[in-house]
């Protein structure tokens, strides 16, 4: 099962490598990982997507929680939450593709943020599935370059992760 961990950790050099090192040392898998400081500059917020059986996820939670730099963590996928990922795609924009990609961008509520005579750069936001669907719609032949941020997530309603 795929799961999303939200982690609050001390914003100190090396904190990221402690989490990443733990995953590689114990053979856990990381599908994506994003990290940036929060409104409190002494804290970083990390969103980590992993997968494993319930037992493995339980162990991951315990091991991450054991790291001294980790202040708090929550398994987002355990309750209602919102997931978003941002993707920048450079596409072909010649001939038929010039209209087609623009139309798709409208349908996916994506934005074309850079244009030249042969290419578009499109910004798409949504769940991972939506981004995959956009890429599929644009078609492999038209895609030149893809950059994805990895998933960010937050709990719904008053469900908040704070120090």
């Amino acid at each position, binding site marked *: 099962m795929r799961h999303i961990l939200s982690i609050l*950790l001390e914003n100190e*050099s090396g904190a990221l*490598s402690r989490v990443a090192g733990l995953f590689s040392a114990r053979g856990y898998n990381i599908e994506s990982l994003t990290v940036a400081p929060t409104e409190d500059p002494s804290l970083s917020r990390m969103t980590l997507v992993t997968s494993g059986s319930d*037992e493995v996820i339980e*162990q991951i939670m315990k091991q991450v929680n054991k790291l*001294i730099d*980790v*202040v708090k963590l929550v398994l987002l996928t355990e309750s209602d939450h919102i997931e978003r990922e941002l993707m920048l795609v450079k596409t072909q924009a010649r001939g038929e593709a010039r209209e087609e990609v623009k139309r798709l961008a409208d349908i996916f509520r994506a934005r074309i943020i850079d244009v030249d005579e042969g290419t578009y750069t499109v910004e798409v936001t949504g769940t991972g599935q939506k981004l995959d669907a956009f890429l599929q719609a644009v078609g492999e032949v038209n895609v030149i370059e893809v950059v994805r941020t990895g998933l960010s997530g937050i709990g719904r309603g008053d469900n908040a992760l704070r120090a």
Partner: protein
Amino acid sequence: MELTGAEILVRCLKEEGVKHVFGYPGGAVLNIYDTLNAQEDVDHILVRHEQGATHAADGYARATGKPGVVLVTSGPGATNAVTGIATAFMDSIPMVIITGQVPTHAIGSDAFQEVDAIGITRPCVKHNFLVKDVSDLALTIKKAFHVATTGRPGPVVVDVPKDVTIARYPFEYPKKIEMRSYKPASKGHTGQIRKAMDMILEARKPMIYSGGGVVLDKSHEVFTEFCRLLGYPVTNTLMGLGAFPGSDPQFVGMLGMHGTYEANMGMHHCDVLIAIGARFDDRVTGNIEKFCPHARIVHIDIDPASIAKTVKVDVPIVGAVGPVLKQMNRMLRESERKPDEQALREWWKQMEEWRATDCLRYDRSSKRIKPQYVMEELYRITGGKAYVTSDVGQHQMWAAQFYKFDLPNRWINSGGLGTMGFGLPAALGVKLALPDEEVVCVTGEASIIMCIQELSTALQYGLPVKVINLNNGYMGMVRQWQEFFFQKRYSMSYMEALPDFVKLAESFGHVGMKIEKPGDVTGALEEAMAMKDRLVFMDFITDPEENVYPMIPAGAGQNEMILV
């Protein structure tokens, strides 16, 4: 008044009550050494290799329960210390290791004797810190001792760049420390404890299985009371020996790969397993699929990550062993419910039948010295009171099987990492901490060579430990596995070109003895023990192909032991 970083560091150690630091100087720590030289509160013990410093500090910590402190230089000083740090980490031993570092402006430039000590040690420490500014130094040292000694203990590395030791800052040592990201559990959850008590009292075939956590928490008395109140069979892990009196009939011996037949059969057949401060290590469980097939399991541990890591448990209790057992003992004393006497009688009858196999028997009429006999005699002559350190291999198992530890902290060995070379420096650390106690290092001719240089340290500081070298001319445990599982192809396990250990000991300024006949064992041991102020290196030439029995082979269950 402003002090230099080096002065602040030494003052911090004094504030923490540190009496001894084990270390080795070098470029990056010269200022710290200069400061150490100018004061008398903290004694520095000069080892001969940084690995020796870490093992000595580790032995010191295991014997006393106080954190061991190490000081080494940058680069090779730090890397040489890594094996000892990992050894302490695997056995949850509190240590603070201060590593020198190149000046902050040189970090990352591949400077002379630069190594990323934080990166290298990260997977084998409880935590580590790089001090980038002298203003952070005192607080960081405070945090290091706090983290190392609380919760599940462990080694903490503090990497101190040279310029930080030179810079000046007002010294103030924080009295208390709060870390929002580190709050170890202490008391257990009362609801869980009640649930556990119900299960424990329902048992008809119970086993109490305890590990190093009881020793580390200094809870052997409350643990022993818990065992006595219940009257259930008690087994200890290799790390847990001494938590319950080893000579007591209620103790059924160590469990696991080379544990007793009765302990392992008891585990296999029990209906309720009470695991206390133990972590279901693979050397204990054997094949996890076949582990305790009939048992409901209660697990008390301070580290939530130890619970349900490899074995699912029915009632987990996260908390320090002492407070949890105290609460359980109170409930046991006050409760109307008692263990089922009839069931317990039958269970003990079964236990005695297993015990009657006498699984530790060996050939007592052999013309060669049997290592088991040396251990038995050592136990008898020291009255079971010695502090025994060991290296890793067959001799370690024989010591664990035949020396009946009645008290905790007396059995000091590298259980988790299995570090050869641990025994001698660890013994020196113990002797330094407890100069009036008998300290014995049980070793083999392969292990002892790995840190033999520390014989010099022993002479310099007058640490008269007794070294018992069970010399069978092989890396015995490797040879045993090759005999059992590789059709006696003894690949690289024969120790050719061994030194003359008597001359070797003498050249280091100690007493050497060589013992070749079974009839000479007792006299030699008595003679050595009587030399109170000398380190005596006893080279026992033992039966080269003796094996450690019983044994659970890899992949087998606890009920599938190889007996003699």
